[in-house]
């Protein structure tokens, strides 16, 4: 049994095998380490490897895990097949990167756009964010309307290759 975590740009895999009371073999990205781990009365985890004893504190928020290890902080997102596909699709950068209000839509459906051209403007927490075309193309559809509140990850514009013959 494996679990997978999104760690920034990577997907990391963890496989845990119990070896005895409080003892596990943890295989992280294919590399095995042996750890001793137990839950402390306050809910934190005490994890020991060959380098020493560490205290970890983990908070769940949806699929996200906030992990404090010693005084360092890490954010990991639980991965599932569907989510990974969604991540791949979002590589175009045409989703709202944060929840916010659409302040302007600067292109129309069918319009041919150049890489870097501003498409949609978002405002959140007093910050403006311009979503620009990640590549040349044609606007296939627009899901954003000015004044509309959108969630983080919402697809706002769909780009398709521009097949208009040159000249």
């Amino acid at each position, binding site marked *: *049994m*494996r*679990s997978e*975590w999104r*760690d*920034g*740009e*990577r997907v*990391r895999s*963890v496989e*845990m095998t*119990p070896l005895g*009371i409080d003892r*596990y073999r*943890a295989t*992280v990205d294919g*590399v095995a*380490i042996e*750890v001793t*781990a*137990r*839950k402390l009365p*306050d*809910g*934190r*985890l005490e*994890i020991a490897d060959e380098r020493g004893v*560490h205290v*970890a*504190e*983990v*908070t*769940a*928020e*949806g*699929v996200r*895990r*906030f*992990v*404090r*290890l010693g*005084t*360092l*902080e*890490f954010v*990991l997102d*639980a991965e*599932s097949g569907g989510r990974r596909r969604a991540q791949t699709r979002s590589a175009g950068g045409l989703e709202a*990167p*944060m*929840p*916010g209000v659409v*302040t302007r839509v600067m292109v129309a459906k069918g319009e041919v756009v150049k890489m870097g051209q501003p498409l949609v403007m978002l*405002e*959140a*927490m*007093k*910050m*403006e*964010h311009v979503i620009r075309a990640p590549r040349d193309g044609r606007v296939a559809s627009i899901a954003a309307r000015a004044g509309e509140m959108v969630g983080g990850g919402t697809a706002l514009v769909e780009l398709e290759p521009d097949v208009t013959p040159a000249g």
Partner: protein
Amino acid sequence: MFRRVLVANRGEIACRIAATLREMDIAPVMVCSEADRGARHTRVGAETLEIGPAEPRASYLNIEALVSAAQRSRADAVHPGYGFLAESAAFAEAVETAGLAFIGPTPEQIRAMGDKRAARALAEKANVPVVPGAEGVDAAALLKAARRIGYPVMVKAALGGGGKGMSVVHDEAALREAVESATRLAASAFGDGAVYLEKRIERARHIEVQVMGDGNGKAIHLFERECSLQRRHQKVIEECPSSAVDDILRDRLTHSAIALAEAVRYRGAGTLEFLLAEDGAFYFLEMNTRLQVEHPVTELVTGLDLVRLQVEIAATGKLPLRQSEVQRLAHAVEARVYAEDAARGFLPQAGVARRVRWPRAPFVRVDAGVDSGDPVPVHYDPILAKVIASGHDRALALTRLAAALDETLVHGVITNLPFLKALVRARAVEEGGFDTEWIEREFLAGFTAVAASPAPELALVAATLADSLGGAAAVGATGATAPSSIPDAFTALGRWRLPGLE
């Protein structure tokens, strides 16, 4: 003295103001939007009135709703905090017209200082040097002015403050875009689209002077604050005193600040922002006619409560102390904890601050706007708290701040805490050798690279174990549950549920 004061703000500053009011035996009347029901600042007053929907314009920027709330609650004064309506002359006027005291400057002073052109003219008249610049709504005229001043130039809303919506442009094409953006932001945030541009002073430091005026032509200063550690023109770490300011420069800066404050017969707390060039020349930037976010460093250095001084001046029209009674007793450094992802372009984050633990230590102060389980709404500024440490010298204050940040925990929304922790330990910060662009020029790339490096194996092990052992669910009654899609590898194995683990 006032009996009830309405705090027309939210978050950490509303909590901080309420604390001083309670200490003064004044009942704090809090207000909140629909999105802020139950927020921390609604739990610290004598009562809380709901003033409207989440959108700032319908609530915290709604003058009518706020004045009506003040009257309904029988408040005798209003404290605006910072941001929102703190620098709105119309609000100050409406409050005074309703027969209440406005804890801040007069509407005329807000108007004069809020208008950068008028403020610059006043500064020049008081013999305070200003940065070459131009202002207007006409893009063509601004382009012409930029040609005269020389690129690069800074562009911002004429009525704005705090660096929101400010940008540096190096050519005309970028200037056109920046002017358009600043005009729109200014129109939506301040109801006036005027844009201001000025020559950029390279490698400048941002130094500001805190003043308090009695409204009758007498003002005192509470030394300077060093606010050069900024990202995207937004301050992140501030301190008092500045390591770039010696006694001679301090005398010149504070003298200029008092000259300008007294020239306008300034009332209450105000801050004069200066750019300090590498050659020691300084230029007046603007005056903020309100309490600053970073006021706690001044408080820890002087032992004076700035909110108390504001209230006393508003109630009596007198300065409660003389210049000779203001002394520097320590060094203090503040770090602003923001809900933003420093490793991803400082993207603001909203959500729920599921688990929060603020540091507790001698010489450490925390001004917080959230506790465990509090929402971080998308509608407002992402500041969560300020962690401030003091010491008898700068090195000690920085060491304490670093330790305090290590002890701080905010889980549930991504914060800039890793960024702050790295920043306070950077050599240039330890040595005091930085300018307003140092973070972006020399620090950010390294930080981003470190932040993008893989998490250690034990962090992944901890996340996996917490899901199976219930460690992550131990947040308590906050409702955080692991999604069912995560394979629970260990419950199936039975033997993991050993006595003593639960």
